[in-house]
Protein backbone atom coordinates (compact mmCIF):
# COMPACT_ATOMS: atom_id res chain seq x y z
CA UNK A 1 0.00 0.00 0.00
CA UNK A 2 1.31 3.38 -0.94
CA UNK A 3 1.26 5.99 1.76
CA UNK A 4 -1.25 8.71 0.95
CA UNK A 5 0.06 12.18 1.43
CA UNK A 6 -1.10 15.62 0.46
CA UNK A 7 0.19 16.63 -2.99
CA UNK A 8 2.78 19.30 -2.98
CA UNK A 9 2.15 22.75 -4.51
CA UNK A 10 4.24 21.90 -7.55
CA UNK A 11 2.25 18.75 -8.14
CA UNK A 12 -1.01 20.67 -7.87
CA UNK A 13 0.20 23.26 -10.39
CA UNK A 14 1.28 20.51 -12.72
CA UNK A 15 -2.11 18.84 -12.43
CA UNK A 16 -3.85 22.13 -13.23
CA UNK A 17 -1.66 22.69 -16.27
CA UNK A 18 -2.41 19.22 -17.56
CA UNK A 19 -6.11 19.81 -17.21
CA UNK A 20 -5.81 23.09 -19.04
CA UNK A 21 -3.91 21.48 -21.90
CA UNK A 22 -6.22 18.52 -22.10
CA UNK A 23 -9.40 20.59 -21.95
CA UNK A 24 -9.70 21.23 -25.73
CA UNK A 25 -8.90 17.61 -26.50
CA UNK A 26 -11.42 16.39 -23.95
CA UNK A 27 -13.98 18.83 -25.34
CA UNK A 28 -13.42 17.44 -28.83
CA UNK A 29 -13.37 13.83 -27.69
CA UNK A 30 -16.63 14.17 -25.75
CA UNK A 31 -18.43 15.58 -28.77
CA UNK A 32 -16.90 13.59 -31.63
CA UNK A 33 -14.83 10.66 -30.40
CA UNK A 34 -12.18 11.86 -32.86
CA UNK A 35 -9.30 11.75 -30.36
CA UNK A 36 -10.02 8.14 -29.57
CA UNK A 37 -10.35 7.44 -33.29
CA UNK A 38 -6.97 8.98 -34.07
CA UNK A 39 -5.41 7.11 -31.14
CA UNK A 40 -6.98 3.90 -32.42
CA UNK A 41 -5.49 4.59 -35.86
CA UNK A 42 -2.02 5.58 -34.69
CA UNK A 43 -1.48 3.21 -31.74
CA UNK A 44 -2.66 -0.09 -33.22
CA UNK A 45 -0.95 -3.32 -32.34
CA UNK A 46 1.43 -4.51 -35.01
CA UNK A 47 3.51 -7.69 -35.11
CA UNK A 48 6.70 -7.40 -33.05
CA UNK A 49 8.90 -8.46 -35.95
CA UNK A 50 7.85 -5.97 -38.64
CA UNK A 51 10.70 -4.19 -40.39
CA UNK A 52 11.55 -1.01 -42.27
CA UNK A 53 10.23 -2.33 -45.57
CA UNK A 54 6.78 -2.00 -44.09
CA UNK A 55 7.12 1.78 -43.97
CA UNK A 56 7.06 2.05 -47.78
CA UNK A 57 3.29 2.43 -47.81
CA UNK A 58 3.46 5.36 -45.40
CA UNK A 59 6.27 6.80 -47.51
CA UNK A 60 4.08 6.60 -50.63
CA UNK A 61 1.26 8.27 -48.71
CA UNK A 62 3.65 11.05 -47.67
CA UNK A 63 4.73 11.47 -51.30
CA UNK A 64 1.07 11.80 -52.28
CA UNK A 65 0.49 14.43 -49.60
CA UNK A 66 3.50 16.37 -50.89
CA UNK A 67 2.03 16.24 -54.40
CA UNK A 68 -1.36 17.36 -53.12
CA UNK A 69 -0.03 20.31 -51.13
CA UNK A 70 2.48 21.53 -53.73
CA UNK A 71 -0.15 21.03 -56.43
CA UNK A 72 -2.66 23.24 -54.62
CA UNK A 73 -0.06 26.00 -54.33
CA UNK A 74 1.05 25.65 -57.96
CA UNK A 75 -2.58 25.97 -59.06
CA UNK A 76 -2.58 29.45 -57.55
CA UNK A 77 -0.01 30.61 -60.12
CA UNK A 78 -0.55 28.33 -63.13
CA UNK A 79 -2.85 29.36 -66.01
CA UNK A 80 -4.19 26.47 -68.13
CA UNK A 81 -4.57 28.51 -71.31
CA UNK A 82 -3.31 27.58 -74.76
CA UNK A 83 -3.98 31.11 -75.98
CA UNK A 84 -1.03 33.11 -77.28
CA UNK A 85 0.13 36.04 -75.21
CA UNK A 86 -0.02 38.96 -77.69
CA UNK A 87 2.90 40.71 -75.95
CA UNK A 88 5.36 37.85 -76.32
CA UNK A 89 3.81 35.49 -78.85
CA UNK A 90 4.20 32.60 -76.40
CA UNK A 91 1.41 30.39 -75.02
CA UNK A 92 0.00 31.66 -71.71
CA UNK A 93 0.25 28.26 -69.96
CA UNK A 94 3.92 27.90 -70.81
CA UNK A 95 4.65 31.48 -69.73
CA UNK A 96 2.95 30.91 -66.37
CA UNK A 97 5.19 27.88 -65.77
CA UNK A 98 8.27 29.91 -66.69
CA UNK A 99 7.05 32.62 -64.31
CA UNK A 100 6.70 30.07 -61.48
CA UNK A 101 10.19 28.67 -62.08
CA UNK A 102 12.11 31.85 -62.80
CA UNK A 103 10.41 34.81 -61.15
CA UNK A 104 8.21 33.87 -58.20
CA UNK A 105 9.91 33.48 -54.81
CA UNK A 106 10.54 29.80 -54.04
CA UNK A 107 8.50 28.85 -57.13
CA UNK A 108 11.44 26.85 -58.47
CA UNK A 109 11.46 24.81 -55.25
CA UNK A 110 7.73 24.04 -55.10
CA UNK A 111 7.53 23.24 -58.80
CA UNK A 112 10.63 21.06 -58.44
CA UNK A 113 9.07 19.25 -55.50
CA UNK A 114 5.94 18.61 -57.55
CA UNK A 115 7.81 17.61 -60.68
CA UNK A 116 10.31 15.24 -59.01
CA UNK A 117 7.86 14.18 -56.32
CA UNK A 118 5.68 12.76 -59.07
CA UNK A 119 8.40 10.24 -59.89
CA UNK A 120 9.06 9.60 -56.20
CA UNK A 121 5.35 8.83 -55.67
CA UNK A 122 5.29 6.29 -58.51
CA UNK A 123 8.61 4.69 -57.48
CA UNK A 124 7.49 4.36 -53.84
CA UNK A 125 4.21 2.81 -54.94
CA UNK A 126 6.12 0.23 -56.97
CA UNK A 127 8.51 -0.53 -54.08
CA UNK A 128 5.54 -0.83 -51.72
CA UNK A 129 3.86 -3.17 -54.19
CA UNK A 130 7.03 -5.26 -54.42
CA UNK A 131 7.21 -5.50 -50.61
CA UNK A 132 3.56 -6.62 -50.42
CA UNK A 133 4.19 -9.18 -53.14
CA UNK A 134 7.39 -10.60 -51.65
CA UNK A 135 5.92 -10.73 -48.13
CA UNK A 136 2.84 -12.49 -49.45
CA UNK A 137 0.80 -9.74 -47.82
CA UNK A 138 -1.70 -9.78 -50.68
CA UNK A 139 -3.07 -13.18 -49.59
CA UNK A 140 -6.34 -13.89 -47.82
CA UNK A 141 -7.94 -11.84 -46.36
CA UNK A 142 -6.09 -8.91 -47.97
CA UNK A 143 -6.80 -9.50 -51.68
CA UNK A 144 -9.19 -6.56 -51.86
CA UNK A 145 -6.51 -4.25 -50.52
CA UNK A 146 -4.19 -5.39 -53.31
CA UNK A 147 -6.88 -4.56 -55.86
CA UNK A 148 -7.45 -1.12 -54.33
CA UNK A 149 -3.69 -0.55 -54.35
CA UNK A 150 -3.47 -1.41 -58.04
CA UNK A 151 -6.24 1.11 -58.73
CA UNK A 152 -4.27 3.76 -56.82
CA UNK A 153 -1.21 2.91 -58.94
CA UNK A 154 -3.23 3.29 -62.16
CA UNK A 155 -4.64 6.59 -60.92
CA UNK A 156 -1.12 7.74 -60.05
CA UNK A 157 0.02 6.99 -63.58
CA UNK A 158 -2.96 8.88 -64.97
CA UNK A 159 -1.85 11.80 -62.82
CA UNK A 160 1.56 11.56 -64.44
CA UNK A 161 0.07 11.43 -67.92
CA UNK A 162 -2.29 14.37 -67.44
CA UNK A 163 0.26 16.45 -65.54
CA UNK A 164 2.89 16.04 -68.24
CA UNK A 165 0.84 18.11 -70.72
CA UNK A 166 0.45 21.13 -68.45
CA UNK A 167 3.81 22.89 -69.18
CA UNK A 168 2.50 23.06 -72.78
CA UNK A 169 5.90 22.84 -74.41
CA UNK A 170 7.11 20.63 -77.24
CA UNK A 171 7.88 17.68 -74.97
CA UNK A 172 4.47 17.93 -73.35
CA UNK A 173 2.67 18.21 -76.68
CA UNK A 174 4.35 15.31 -78.47
CA UNK A 175 4.30 13.03 -75.43
CA UNK A 176 0.56 13.61 -75.19
CA UNK A 177 0.07 13.08 -78.94
CA UNK A 178 1.78 9.70 -78.66
CA UNK A 179 0.15 8.81 -75.33
CA UNK A 180 -3.38 9.57 -76.51
CA UNK A 181 -2.85 7.78 -79.81
CA UNK A 182 -1.54 4.73 -77.94
CA UNK A 183 -4.98 4.61 -76.34
CA UNK A 184 -6.42 5.02 -79.82
CA UNK A 185 -4.91 1.72 -80.96
CA UNK A 186 -6.98 -0.30 -78.46
CA UNK A 187 -9.47 -2.42 -80.40
CA UNK A 188 -13.08 -1.29 -80.86
CA UNK A 189 -13.38 1.67 -78.48
CA UNK A 190 -9.75 2.89 -78.68
CA UNK A 191 -10.37 5.70 -81.19
CA UNK A 192 -13.36 6.85 -79.12
CA UNK A 193 -11.33 6.90 -75.92
CA UNK A 194 -8.63 8.90 -77.70
CA UNK A 195 -11.16 11.42 -78.97
CA UNK A 196 -12.67 11.71 -75.50
CA UNK A 197 -9.24 12.42 -74.01
CA UNK A 198 -8.49 15.03 -76.69
CA UNK A 199 -11.93 16.57 -76.36
CA UNK A 200 -12.06 16.64 -80.16
CA UNK A 201 -10.31 15.36 -83.22
CA UNK A 202 -7.06 17.20 -82.58
CA UNK A 203 -5.16 18.27 -79.47
CA UNK A 204 -6.09 21.85 -78.71
CA UNK A 205 -6.65 24.26 -75.85
CA UNK A 206 -9.65 22.12 -74.89
CA UNK A 207 -7.30 19.21 -74.27
CA UNK A 208 -5.17 21.35 -71.97
CA UNK A 209 -8.09 22.53 -69.81
CA UNK A 210 -9.54 19.02 -69.79
CA UNK A 211 -6.25 17.49 -68.63
CA UNK A 212 -5.89 20.25 -66.03
CA UNK A 213 -9.33 19.46 -64.61
CA UNK A 214 -8.64 15.72 -64.59
CA UNK A 215 -5.19 16.28 -63.10
CA UNK A 216 -6.17 18.51 -60.20
CA UNK A 217 -9.78 17.57 -59.41
CA UNK A 218 -11.07 14.25 -60.68
CA UNK A 219 -8.09 11.92 -60.30
CA UNK A 220 -6.80 13.31 -56.96
CA UNK A 221 -10.35 12.99 -55.58
CA UNK A 222 -10.43 9.37 -56.71
CA UNK A 223 -6.99 8.74 -55.19
CA UNK A 224 -8.03 10.25 -51.85
CA UNK A 225 -11.11 8.03 -51.79
CA UNK A 226 -9.09 4.95 -52.70
CA UNK A 227 -6.38 5.73 -50.10
CA UNK A 228 -9.11 6.07 -47.45
CA UNK A 229 -10.44 2.65 -48.40
CA UNK A 230 -6.88 1.26 -48.50
CA UNK A 231 -6.14 2.52 -44.97
CA UNK A 232 -9.48 1.33 -43.66
CA UNK A 233 -8.64 -2.16 -44.85
CA UNK A 234 -5.15 -1.95 -43.34
CA UNK A 235 -6.64 -1.00 -39.96
CA UNK A 236 -9.36 -3.61 -40.17
CA UNK A 237 -7.12 -6.48 -41.27
CA UNK A 238 -3.92 -5.51 -39.49
CA UNK A 239 -0.32 -5.59 -40.64
CA UNK A 240 1.19 -8.87 -41.77
CA UNK A 241 4.28 -10.39 -40.23
CA UNK A 242 7.30 -10.89 -42.49
CA UNK A 243 7.46 -14.33 -44.11
CA UNK A 244 10.34 -15.33 -41.80
CA UNK A 245 8.31 -14.51 -38.70
CA UNK A 246 8.44 -17.19 -36.02
CA UNK A 247 5.36 -15.68 -34.38
CA UNK A 248 3.32 -16.01 -37.53
CA UNK A 249 4.48 -19.60 -37.90
CA UNK A 250 2.88 -20.38 -34.54
CA UNK A 251 6.14 -20.71 -32.57
CA UNK A 252 6.63 -18.67 -29.44
CA UNK A 253 9.71 -16.55 -29.28
CA UNK A 254 12.06 -17.12 -26.37
CA UNK A 255 11.75 -13.71 -24.86
CA UNK A 256 8.06 -13.17 -25.49
CA UNK A 257 6.57 -10.35 -23.57
CA UNK A 258 3.72 -11.83 -21.65
CA UNK A 259 1.39 -8.81 -21.79
CA UNK A 260 1.03 -8.97 -25.57
CA UNK A 261 -2.50 -9.85 -26.49
CA UNK A 262 -3.30 -12.22 -29.32
CA UNK A 263 -5.55 -10.69 -31.90
CA UNK A 264 -5.91 -9.94 -35.54
CA UNK A 265 -2.26 -9.09 -35.91
CA UNK A 266 -1.02 -12.06 -33.91
CA UNK A 267 -2.13 -15.63 -34.16
CA UNK A 268 -3.83 -17.07 -31.11
CA UNK A 269 -1.44 -19.59 -29.48
CA UNK A 270 -2.76 -23.06 -29.95
CA UNK A 271 -0.90 -24.89 -27.17
CA UNK A 272 -3.22 -26.68 -24.79
CA UNK A 273 -1.57 -25.71 -21.51
CA UNK A 274 -0.39 -22.36 -20.18
CA UNK A 275 -0.35 -19.65 -22.81
CA UNK A 276 0.73 -16.08 -22.78
CA UNK A 277 -2.81 -15.06 -21.95
CA UNK A 278 -3.00 -16.99 -18.74
CA UNK A 279 0.52 -16.25 -17.63
CA UNK A 280 -0.04 -12.56 -17.09
CA UNK A 281 1.59 -11.09 -14.00
CA UNK A 282 -1.04 -10.50 -11.40
CA UNK A 283 -3.03 -13.38 -12.80
CA UNK A 284 -4.29 -16.12 -10.52
CA UNK A 285 -2.13 -19.00 -11.62
Amino acid at each position, binding site marked *: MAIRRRPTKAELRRQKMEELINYPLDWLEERSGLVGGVKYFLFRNVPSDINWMQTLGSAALTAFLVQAITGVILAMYYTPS*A*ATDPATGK*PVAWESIVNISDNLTLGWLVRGMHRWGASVFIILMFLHMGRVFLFGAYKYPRELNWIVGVLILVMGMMEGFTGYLLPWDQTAYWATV*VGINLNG*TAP*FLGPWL*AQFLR*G*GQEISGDTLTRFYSLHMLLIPGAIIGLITLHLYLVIRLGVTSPPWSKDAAGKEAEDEEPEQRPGLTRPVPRTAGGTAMQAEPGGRD
Partner: protein
Amino acid sequence: MEPEQPSPDPKHESAPEEAHLPPPTLWPIGFAIGVVVVLVGLVINPELISSIGGVIVVVFGFLWARDATAELRGAAPPVEPERREAPAEEGHDVTLVPVTAETVTRSRFLEGATLGLGGVIGGLITVPVAGFAILPGFLRQKGHKVDLGPISDFTPSQWFITTFVVDPAQGEVSRRTAFIRNNGPVTDPKTKKPVQSFSIISNRCVHLRCPTQANGPTGSILGMPTVTEHTANGHVVLDPVVPAGYGCPCHGSQYDVEGNRTAGPAPHALDRYEYEIDNGRLILLSTYSVSHVVGAGAQAKIYKYGYSSPGNEVNGPEQWLWPLQPPHH
Protein backbone atom coordinates in the same frame (compact mmCIF):
# COMPACT_ATOMS: atom_id res chain seq x y z
CA MET B 1 -56.10 -27.51 -68.23
CA GLU B 2 -54.36 -30.33 -66.45
CA PRO B 3 -55.74 -33.69 -67.56
CA GLU B 4 -55.14 -35.42 -64.21
CA GLN B 5 -57.56 -33.13 -62.44
CA PRO B 6 -60.81 -35.06 -62.14
CA SER B 7 -63.14 -32.17 -61.34
CA PRO B 8 -63.12 -29.12 -63.60
CA ASP B 9 -61.82 -25.88 -62.06
CA PRO B 10 -64.86 -23.84 -61.05
CA LYS B 11 -63.17 -20.56 -61.99
CA HIS B 12 -62.46 -21.67 -65.50
CA GLU B 13 -65.95 -22.98 -65.89
CA SER B 14 -67.80 -19.91 -64.68
CA ALA B 15 -65.85 -17.17 -66.46
CA PRO B 16 -63.54 -18.51 -69.15
CA GLU B 17 -62.99 -15.13 -70.80
CA GLU B 18 -61.74 -13.58 -67.55
CA ALA B 19 -59.12 -16.25 -67.10
CA HIS B 20 -57.32 -15.11 -70.24
CA LEU B 21 -57.22 -11.44 -69.32
CA PRO B 22 -53.67 -10.27 -68.58
CA PRO B 23 -53.17 -8.67 -65.16
CA PRO B 24 -53.29 -4.88 -64.97
CA THR B 25 -49.95 -3.25 -65.72
CA LEU B 26 -48.35 0.18 -65.82
CA TRP B 27 -45.70 -0.58 -68.47
CA PRO B 28 -47.81 0.74 -71.42
CA ILE B 29 -47.44 4.25 -69.94
CA GLY B 30 -43.66 4.10 -70.31
CA PHE B 31 -44.12 2.57 -73.75
CA ALA B 32 -46.35 5.48 -74.76
CA ILE B 33 -43.86 8.01 -73.37
CA GLY B 34 -41.16 6.33 -75.46
CA VAL B 35 -43.27 6.66 -78.61
CA VAL B 36 -43.82 10.36 -77.85
CA VAL B 37 -40.07 10.85 -77.37
CA VAL B 38 -39.42 9.17 -80.73
CA LEU B 39 -41.92 11.46 -82.47
CA VAL B 40 -40.64 14.61 -80.75
CA GLY B 41 -37.09 13.51 -81.57
CA LEU B 42 -37.99 13.24 -85.26
CA VAL B 43 -38.69 16.97 -85.15
CA ILE B 44 -35.85 18.09 -82.86
CA ASN B 45 -32.92 15.72 -83.24
CA PRO B 46 -33.59 12.44 -85.06
CA GLU B 47 -30.23 10.89 -84.21
CA LEU B 48 -30.05 11.48 -80.47
CA ILE B 49 -33.54 12.07 -79.06
CA SER B 50 -35.22 9.51 -81.29
CA SER B 51 -32.73 6.83 -80.42
CA ILE B 52 -33.28 7.56 -76.71
CA GLY B 53 -37.03 7.23 -77.37
CA GLY B 54 -36.38 4.02 -79.25
CA VAL B 55 -34.53 2.61 -76.27
CA ILE B 56 -37.43 3.57 -73.98
CA VAL B 57 -39.92 1.93 -76.36
CA VAL B 58 -37.88 -1.26 -76.56
CA VAL B 59 -37.31 -1.49 -72.80
CA PHE B 60 -40.90 -0.81 -71.82
CA GLY B 61 -42.25 -2.91 -74.68
CA PHE B 62 -40.17 -5.80 -73.41
CA LEU B 63 -41.35 -5.32 -69.82
CA TRP B 64 -44.98 -5.02 -70.99
CA ALA B 65 -44.72 -8.12 -73.12
CA ARG B 66 -43.11 -10.00 -70.26
CA ASP B 67 -45.90 -8.98 -67.91
CA ALA B 68 -48.61 -9.83 -70.41
CA THR B 69 -47.20 -13.26 -71.14
CA ALA B 70 -46.41 -14.13 -67.51
CA GLU B 71 -49.39 -16.47 -67.25
CA LEU B 72 -48.66 -18.20 -70.52
CA ARG B 73 -45.05 -18.76 -69.57
CA GLY B 74 -46.06 -20.02 -66.14
CA ALA B 75 -44.54 -17.51 -63.75
CA ALA B 76 -43.15 -18.69 -60.43
CA PRO B 77 -45.93 -19.19 -57.85
CA PRO B 78 -45.97 -16.68 -54.99
CA VAL B 79 -44.33 -18.05 -51.87
CA GLU B 80 -46.46 -17.87 -48.74
CA PRO B 81 -44.61 -16.12 -45.94
CA GLU B 82 -44.16 -17.88 -42.66
CA ARG B 83 -46.82 -17.01 -40.10
CA ARG B 84 -46.66 -17.30 -36.38
CA GLU B 85 -49.39 -16.72 -33.83
CA ALA B 86 -48.76 -13.68 -31.71
CA PRO B 87 -49.09 -14.42 -27.99
CA ALA B 88 -52.44 -13.00 -27.02
CA GLU B 89 -52.23 -10.56 -24.12
CA GLU B 90 -54.74 -10.79 -21.34
CA GLY B 91 -57.95 -9.00 -22.18
CA HIS B 92 -56.95 -8.25 -25.76
CA ASP B 93 -57.49 -10.41 -28.72
CA VAL B 94 -54.64 -9.63 -31.04
CA THR B 95 -55.26 -10.61 -34.60
CA LEU B 96 -52.37 -10.21 -36.97
CA VAL B 97 -53.22 -9.40 -40.52
CA PRO B 98 -51.14 -11.78 -42.64
CA VAL B 99 -48.86 -9.82 -44.95
CA THR B 100 -48.08 -11.50 -48.24
CA ALA B 101 -44.87 -10.91 -50.13
CA GLU B 102 -46.69 -8.82 -52.73
CA THR B 103 -48.30 -6.48 -50.25
CA VAL B 104 -46.72 -3.04 -50.26
CA THR B 105 -46.48 -2.06 -46.65
CA ARG B 106 -45.98 1.54 -45.56
CA SER B 107 -42.30 1.06 -44.72
CA ARG B 108 -41.65 -0.87 -47.90
CA PHE B 109 -43.32 1.86 -49.92
CA LEU B 110 -41.28 4.61 -48.22
CA GLU B 111 -38.08 2.64 -48.70
CA GLY B 112 -38.79 2.15 -52.39
CA ALA B 113 -39.90 5.76 -52.82
CA THR B 114 -36.73 7.11 -51.18
CA LEU B 115 -34.45 4.92 -53.25
CA GLY B 116 -36.43 5.52 -56.42
CA LEU B 117 -36.62 9.29 -55.99
CA GLY B 118 -32.95 9.42 -55.08
CA GLY B 119 -32.14 7.45 -58.19
CA VAL B 120 -34.26 9.73 -60.37
CA ILE B 121 -32.69 12.88 -58.92
CA GLY B 122 -29.20 11.40 -59.25
CA GLY B 123 -29.91 10.45 -62.84
CA LEU B 124 -31.33 13.86 -63.69
CA ILE B 125 -28.11 15.45 -62.46
CA THR B 126 -25.63 12.85 -63.71
CA VAL B 127 -26.88 12.26 -67.24
CA PRO B 128 -26.62 15.83 -68.57
CA VAL B 129 -23.34 16.44 -66.71
CA ALA B 130 -21.79 13.26 -68.10
CA GLY B 131 -23.12 14.21 -71.52
CA PHE B 132 -21.46 17.62 -71.22
CA ALA B 133 -18.18 15.93 -70.29
CA ILE B 134 -18.25 13.53 -73.23
CA LEU B 135 -20.40 14.76 -76.12
CA PRO B 136 -18.74 18.09 -77.11
CA GLY B 137 -15.64 16.18 -78.20
CA PHE B 138 -17.71 14.15 -80.63
CA LEU B 139 -20.58 16.29 -81.92
CA ARG B 140 -20.36 19.28 -84.26
CA GLN B 141 -16.77 18.66 -85.31
CA LYS B 142 -16.12 21.38 -87.86
CA GLY B 143 -14.04 20.95 -90.96
CA HIS B 144 -11.54 23.58 -92.01
CA LYS B 145 -10.50 25.05 -95.32
CA VAL B 146 -6.83 25.94 -95.31
CA ASP B 147 -5.69 28.61 -97.76
CA LEU B 148 -2.11 27.83 -98.84
CA GLY B 149 -1.75 30.78 -101.20
CA PRO B 150 -1.42 30.95 -105.00
CA ILE B 151 -0.56 27.72 -106.81
CA SER B 152 2.12 29.62 -108.71
CA ASP B 153 4.24 29.32 -105.55
CA PHE B 154 4.36 25.57 -106.10
CA THR B 155 6.98 24.93 -108.76
CA PRO B 156 5.85 21.91 -110.82
CA SER B 157 7.54 18.58 -109.96
CA GLN B 158 9.09 20.10 -106.83
CA TRP B 159 8.25 18.87 -103.32
CA PHE B 160 7.62 21.52 -100.67
CA ILE B 161 7.54 21.04 -96.89
CA THR B 162 4.54 23.25 -96.27
CA THR B 163 3.49 24.37 -92.79
CA PHE B 164 0.19 26.12 -92.07
CA VAL B 165 -2.24 26.81 -89.23
CA VAL B 166 -5.39 24.71 -89.69
CA ASP B 167 -7.57 26.64 -87.23
CA PRO B 168 -6.48 30.27 -86.68
CA ALA B 169 -8.78 30.42 -83.63
CA GLN B 170 -6.69 27.70 -81.96
CA GLY B 171 -3.42 29.27 -83.00
CA GLU B 172 -0.03 27.62 -83.28
CA VAL B 173 -1.18 24.38 -81.65
CA SER B 174 -3.05 23.60 -84.85
CA ARG B 175 0.02 24.17 -87.07
CA ARG B 176 0.41 21.21 -89.39
CA THR B 177 2.86 20.17 -92.06
CA ALA B 178 2.23 18.58 -95.45
CA PHE B 179 4.56 17.44 -98.21
CA ILE B 180 3.13 18.99 -101.38
CA ARG B 181 4.10 18.50 -105.00
CA ASN B 182 2.56 20.18 -108.01
CA ASN B 183 2.23 17.36 -110.54
CA GLY B 184 1.53 19.79 -113.37
CA PRO B 185 -1.59 20.04 -115.51
CA VAL B 186 -3.66 16.98 -116.26
CA THR B 187 -6.92 16.63 -118.18
CA ASP B 188 -9.97 16.46 -115.96
CA PRO B 189 -11.80 13.28 -117.01
CA LYS B 190 -15.21 14.98 -116.67
CA THR B 191 -14.78 18.50 -117.99
CA LYS B 192 -11.91 17.66 -120.39
CA LYS B 193 -10.18 20.86 -119.25
CA PRO B 194 -6.61 20.98 -117.98
CA VAL B 195 -6.38 21.21 -114.15
CA GLN B 196 -3.42 21.23 -111.81
CA SER B 197 -2.80 17.94 -110.03
CA PHE B 198 -1.28 17.96 -106.53
CA SER B 199 0.12 15.25 -104.27
CA ILE B 200 -0.55 16.43 -100.71
CA ILE B 201 0.75 14.09 -98.01
CA SER B 202 0.26 14.77 -94.29
CA ASN B 203 3.55 14.51 -92.41
CA ARG B 204 1.88 13.00 -89.34
CA CYS B 205 3.02 9.37 -88.96
CA VAL B 206 0.11 6.94 -89.10
CA HIS B 207 1.62 4.94 -86.24
CA LEU B 208 1.12 7.44 -83.39
CA ARG B 209 1.08 10.83 -85.16
CA CYS B 210 4.64 11.93 -84.58
CA PRO B 211 5.93 14.33 -87.26
CA THR B 212 7.78 12.52 -90.04
CA GLN B 213 10.68 14.35 -91.64
CA ALA B 214 11.62 14.43 -95.30
CA ASN B 215 14.84 12.48 -95.87
CA GLY B 216 16.69 14.77 -98.24
CA PRO B 217 18.25 18.18 -98.79
CA THR B 218 16.06 21.24 -98.19
CA GLY B 219 15.97 24.83 -99.44
CA SER B 220 19.25 26.26 -98.20
CA ILE B 221 21.26 23.27 -99.38
CA LEU B 222 19.45 23.19 -102.72
CA GLY B 223 20.01 26.89 -103.14
CA MET B 224 16.27 27.48 -103.54
CA PRO B 225 14.32 30.16 -101.69
CA THR B 226 11.89 29.39 -98.89
CA VAL B 227 8.58 31.08 -99.68
CA THR B 228 6.38 32.57 -96.95
CA GLU B 229 2.79 33.48 -97.77
CA HIS B 230 0.54 35.35 -95.35
CA THR B 231 -2.98 33.98 -95.69
CA ALA B 232 -6.03 33.59 -93.46
CA ASN B 233 -4.28 30.51 -92.07
CA GLY B 234 -1.32 32.27 -90.51
CA HIS B 235 2.00 32.45 -92.29
CA VAL B 236 2.32 29.55 -94.69
CA VAL B 237 5.92 28.43 -95.17
CA LEU B 238 6.99 26.52 -98.30
CA ASP B 239 10.41 24.94 -97.92
CA PRO B 240 11.59 23.15 -101.08
CA VAL B 241 12.95 19.64 -100.57
CA VAL B 242 14.16 16.67 -102.60
CA PRO B 243 13.00 13.76 -100.48
CA ALA B 244 14.19 10.18 -100.81
CA GLY B 245 11.30 9.33 -98.50
CA TYR B 246 9.99 10.25 -95.09
CA GLY B 247 11.07 8.98 -91.68
CA CYS B 248 9.48 9.20 -88.27
CA PRO B 249 11.78 10.14 -85.36
CA CYS B 250 9.71 8.45 -82.66
CA HIS B 251 9.61 4.76 -83.53
CA GLY B 252 11.41 4.59 -86.85
CA SER B 253 8.65 4.15 -89.42
CA GLN B 254 9.87 4.86 -92.96
CA TYR B 255 7.85 5.85 -96.00
CA ASP B 256 8.73 6.29 -99.66
CA VAL B 257 8.17 9.51 -101.60
CA GLU B 258 4.51 8.71 -102.29
CA GLY B 259 3.96 7.90 -98.59
CA ASN B 260 3.96 4.11 -98.89
CA ARG B 261 5.16 2.44 -95.72
CA THR B 262 8.54 0.77 -96.25
CA ALA B 263 9.59 -0.04 -92.66
CA GLY B 264 8.62 0.33 -89.03
CA PRO B 265 5.48 0.00 -86.96
CA ALA B 266 3.19 2.14 -89.15
CA PRO B 267 0.18 0.10 -90.36
CA HIS B 268 -0.28 1.72 -93.79
CA ALA B 269 0.70 4.65 -96.01
CA LEU B 270 0.71 8.30 -94.90
CA ASP B 271 -2.61 10.15 -94.83
CA ARG B 272 -3.39 12.65 -97.57
CA TYR B 273 -5.36 15.87 -97.82
CA GLU B 274 -8.30 16.52 -100.11
CA TYR B 275 -7.81 19.79 -101.96
CA GLU B 276 -9.47 22.21 -104.30
CA ILE B 277 -8.22 25.07 -106.40
CA ASP B 278 -10.20 28.23 -105.80
CA ASN B 279 -9.33 31.34 -107.82
CA GLY B 280 -5.84 30.06 -108.46
CA ARG B 281 -5.26 29.37 -104.75
CA LEU B 282 -4.60 25.94 -103.29
CA ILE B 283 -7.15 25.09 -100.59
CA LEU B 284 -6.65 22.09 -98.29
CA LEU B 285 -9.78 20.22 -97.17
CA SER B 286 -10.17 17.21 -94.88
CA THR B 287 -7.70 14.36 -94.51
CA TYR B 288 -8.25 10.76 -95.52
CA SER B 289 -6.38 7.53 -94.87
CA VAL B 290 -4.51 5.61 -97.55
CA SER B 291 -3.62 1.92 -97.53
CA HIS B 292 -1.03 2.21 -100.29
CA VAL B 293 -0.25 4.10 -103.48
CA VAL B 294 0.63 2.52 -106.84
CA GLY B 295 2.51 4.67 -109.29
CA ALA B 296 3.57 8.24 -108.70
CA GLY B 297 2.59 11.83 -109.32
CA ALA B 298 -0.54 12.61 -111.32
CA GLN B 299 -0.86 9.00 -112.49
CA ALA B 300 -0.67 7.56 -108.96
CA LYS B 301 -3.48 5.22 -108.00
CA ILE B 302 -4.33 6.05 -104.39
CA TYR B 303 -6.14 3.38 -102.39
CA LYS B 304 -8.28 5.71 -100.35
CA TYR B 305 -10.13 5.03 -97.07
CA GLY B 306 -12.08 7.13 -94.58
CA TYR B 307 -9.98 8.93 -92.00
CA SER B 308 -8.98 6.49 -89.29
CA SER B 309 -7.25 6.88 -85.95
CA PRO B 310 -3.45 6.37 -86.06
CA GLY B 311 -2.27 2.83 -85.51
CA ASN B 312 -5.53 1.42 -86.85
CA GLU B 313 -5.52 -0.80 -89.95
CA VAL B 314 -7.69 0.47 -92.78
CA ASN B 315 -7.93 -2.76 -94.78
CA GLY B 316 -7.44 -6.48 -94.37
CA PRO B 317 -8.93 -8.53 -91.56
CA GLU B 318 -7.37 -6.28 -88.91
CA GLN B 319 -9.70 -3.44 -89.87
CA TRP B 320 -12.49 -5.28 -88.05
CA LEU B 321 -10.75 -4.46 -84.76
CA TRP B 322 -11.80 -0.84 -85.31
CA PRO B 323 -15.25 -1.12 -86.87
CA LEU B 324 -16.39 2.38 -85.95
CA GLN B 325 -14.34 5.56 -86.05
CA PRO B 326 -15.55 8.53 -83.98
CA PRO B 327 -17.09 11.43 -85.89
CA HIS B 328 -14.53 13.64 -87.61
CA HIS B 329 -14.41 16.27 -90.28
